[in-house]
């Protein structure tokens, strides 16, 4: 089909104002939060399931590949347009359709911002638990595609543990419902395998998520440690005591220095690691477990321990952690973020090996991570203006991932494979493993028209482009 005729067709479905196709207008859709980029053919903003279905049917008929785009905060290139593809984005489908307090669920459109949902349902004493650090900006549709995590996933699980059902549009434009509002359904768990399929199975247009009650009491602890090793010992001590905190986060010395440069988070300049622990539950539960956590922090060598219970004070303790990535901009203009996961007991060992990679490649690496889950986030810092810097970074990042895999871990805990790590999939999965995965995709999308060229190795090198460590970026 001729490009002009195709565009007219899209405009006929969503209205002229809701199709972007001029080169300059498309530039903002070229990026997500990763280092990859790709200019879409056009970007379409549908307003309803029906419009999504008709847009997809039109593109499918025209042989144009498609990719769903949430808000572009993804960190693996998941929303980057494959060559010749249109993007379907959801700023107009951003409605919370229903909050059902008795069933403790919400029905939302894919463009709803994660934090907006959580803020809204808190009026009813409920909350949406998965809280990716980009939650101020990221959308539920994108959360489904990536099976997004977040600090509080330690206790409550990731997105997949909170999705009940979905209405999805398949590559042909066919609309299908997966899961249900009941907790248990008959047949294969299609909403389970759809979640985290990185936009390759279909596009969710309506999502039912579980909500949890807001706990009676929340207490946050901050422990300052002389080094990462002792902070890791504290993590083990807490877990061994039979405590699963709501969140258990760590930042290392380099990150602490960056944070302190930007604004005083109250960390001593010579601190080697900061550990954040959040407990939730009944008041007397939090009191009892809180005392044990505090003791464990002191016993394992903390030089300072602070505790906070009011929302405001807790926010202060979290401020350094939440602003960490943005603060790295004070050290280097760019970063490359790795999302490897290792068994908790291997944390200290792997962080030591990451430090060796830092030396070997002469790259500063700052660590900000979900310690309780063993989900590392080494940030490789660089300046893209220096020739060869990005290639050096990509090579060092690959080495970090190999270390994680060798330690019994894996490539990605919450950011997805996308474009960034597709060639590294063979480190974890055999040809046969991947063939089984692809056969599921074939059942949902036999023509592979949705987000082609992602997740699985195909030898195609994608264009990298570094992006600045801007204050808004989060992990």
């Amino acid at each position, binding site marked *: 089909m001729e490009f002009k005729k195709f565009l007219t067709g899209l405009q006929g479905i969503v209205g002229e104002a809701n199709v972007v196709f001029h080169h300059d207008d498309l530039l903002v859709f070229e990026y997500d939060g990763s280092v990859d980029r790709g200019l879409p053919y056009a970007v379409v903003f549908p307003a309803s399931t029906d419009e999504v279905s008709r847009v997809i049917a039109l593109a499918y008929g025209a042989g144009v590949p498609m990719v769903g785009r949430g808000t572009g905060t993804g960190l693996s290139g998941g929303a980057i347009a494959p060559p010749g593809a249109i993007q379907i984005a959801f700023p107009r489908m951003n409605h919370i359709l229903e909050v059902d307090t008795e069933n*403790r669920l919400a029905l939302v459109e894919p463009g709803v911002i994660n934090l907006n949902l959580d803020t809204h349902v808190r009026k009813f004493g409920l909350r949406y638990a998965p809280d990716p650090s980009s939650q101020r900006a990221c959308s539920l549709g994108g959360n489904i595609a990536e099976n997004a995590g977040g600090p509080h996933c330690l206790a409550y699980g990731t997105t997949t543990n909170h999705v009940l059902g979905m209405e999805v549009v398949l590559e042909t434009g066919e609309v299908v419902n997966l899961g249900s509002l009941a*907790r248990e359904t008959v047949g294969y768990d299609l909403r389970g395998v759809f979640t985290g399929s990185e936009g390759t199975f279909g596009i969710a247009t309506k999502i039912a998520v579980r909500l949890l009650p807001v706990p009676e009491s929340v207490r946050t602890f901050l422990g300052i440690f002389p080094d990462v090793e002792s902070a890791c010992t504290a993590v083990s001590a807490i877990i061994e005591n039979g405590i699963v905190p709501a969140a258990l986060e760590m930042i290392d010395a380099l990150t602490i220095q960056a944070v302190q440069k930007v604004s005083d988070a109250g960390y001593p300049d010579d601190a080697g690691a900061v550990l954040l622990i959040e407990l939730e539950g009944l008041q007397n539960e939090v009191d009892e477990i809180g005392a044990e956590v505090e003791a464990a922090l002191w016993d394992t060598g903390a030089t300072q321990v602070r505790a906070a219970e009011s929302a405001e004070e807790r926010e202060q303790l979290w401020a350094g952690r939440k602003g960490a990535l943005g603060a790295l901009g004070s050290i280097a203009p760019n970063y490359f973020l790795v999302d490897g996961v290792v068994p908790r007991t291997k944390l200290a060992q792997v962080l030591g090996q990451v430090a060796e990679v830092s030396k070997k490649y002469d790259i500063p690496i700052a660590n900000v991570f979900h310690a309780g889950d063993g989900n590392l986030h080494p940030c490789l810092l660089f300046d893209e203006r220096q020739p060869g810097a990005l290639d050096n970074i990509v090579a060092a990042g690959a080495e970090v991932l190999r270390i994680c895999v060798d330690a019994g871990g894996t490539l990605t805990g919450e950011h997805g494979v996308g474009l960034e790590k597709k060639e590294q999939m063979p480190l974890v999965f055999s040809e046969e493993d991947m063939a089984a995965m692809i056969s599921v995709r074939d*059942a949902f999308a036999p023509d592979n028209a949705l987000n082609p060229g992602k997740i699985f190795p195909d030898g195609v090198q994608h264009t990298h482009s570094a992006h600045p460590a801007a204050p808004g970026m989060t992990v």
Partner: protein
Amino acid sequence: MESSLGDRLVGLLGSNAVVPVDGYNVDGLTPQAVVRPGNRLQVSEVLRWASAEQVSVLPWGGGTRMGLGNVPRKADLVLDLSRLDRLVDYQPADMTATVEAGVTLASLQEQLAPGGEFVPLESELSSRSTVGGILSVGSGGPLAHAYGLPREWLIGVSVLSADGIATKSGGKVVKNVTGYDLNKLYTGSLGTLGVIVEASFKLLPIDREAGALMASFPSLSSALSAGQKLLHSPAAPMGYQSVTSGASRRLQDSLNAASQDLGLGDPETALSFAFYSGRANATARRLEEGAALLLSAGANAVQRVEGPASNGLLRWITDAPSEMSPRSALMMKLSVPSKAAPSTSAESSDITLFGNRPEQLADPGFGTIRLFWPQAPGGAEEQPFLDAIKQTQQIAHRYGGSAVVEQCPLPIKGNIDVWGDAPDSLAIMRRIKDKFDPAGILNPGRFLGGI
């Protein structure tokens, strides 16, 4: 024919791996042979051979739920996985464990206990139910309100495909989005997509203090609405189950004195159980507030059950469906949104089979209602069964849920889809099955829509 299949398997794996077929019936069908491999290489060989020979394979764990699902179209070979029963890897500090599929849930919990941890899977008859079987069924238990389903705890799985090829998904770490989440696909697929040989789980620490509340109510509906109030309060239990008095009669016998206090004489009386665990102080506070709440919400009487006795109650409730089974003509399991549980239960209670109303076991938090219609003299006539099944399914569907026939007479079972009406995603499910098992040898016909 019968001997030839067994003989060929002896030739393939040696005589040790082939066992007598006695006791391995599935829906009245006796397999031609039963094979009990000693390792996963042998499982792979069996599958490769069966695939090539078009021999249907019925994977078998502890054999406790082999009645679930439709009557198989073919039952040539039972593949008993109980010899694959090793705990492969357990690191308490990682709070993860990797086990072979044939280990029983009870044995696994025993092996994890010294590390102070457990796997939050629940199953009837846990000393016989295997990990592989529990994953294949994919259902939870009385604490599903807190723990959800096995899907929430499985972090990695090794599966042998229908033609014997080893594949895996997930891994041994608790957070993982590397590749598609096939763990979810295998869980609850009733062995129709591959044979699970090994699984890795996320674990939880064993809570220090357990306790339960036992309360009697004038009716099941009052028990369920009180339960919903309790579940939405700060004293929310890990799980809340209500049973009709007929279903609780066995318990009544074993807890004679207690049940008299609870005034269980009246046939309308229903009994509720609320299960708690956690730190001592918090558990004590929840038990106290919970008891007060249930009384104010209409309970006749409430009793506290502390410590090990509460674990006994939990085991009894977990096993209740198995205990009810021999006395039941028809058993159905309904899954509805939690809000709809009381109405679903009330409407279902009016459905009679040969004049009998169903006994019920209901979970108003998770939205599961199990119905047990008792055996009746001369109750072999088909139409009343079909009517009761249809009416029940209509109620569940009206509330956005499903109703599965868990037990009914064989002639009737052969004429229905026990899973009820198929959802609109059935076409995708069929395509998945065709990709994973093109020869259609794994549990043929037992799953939804005849998959």
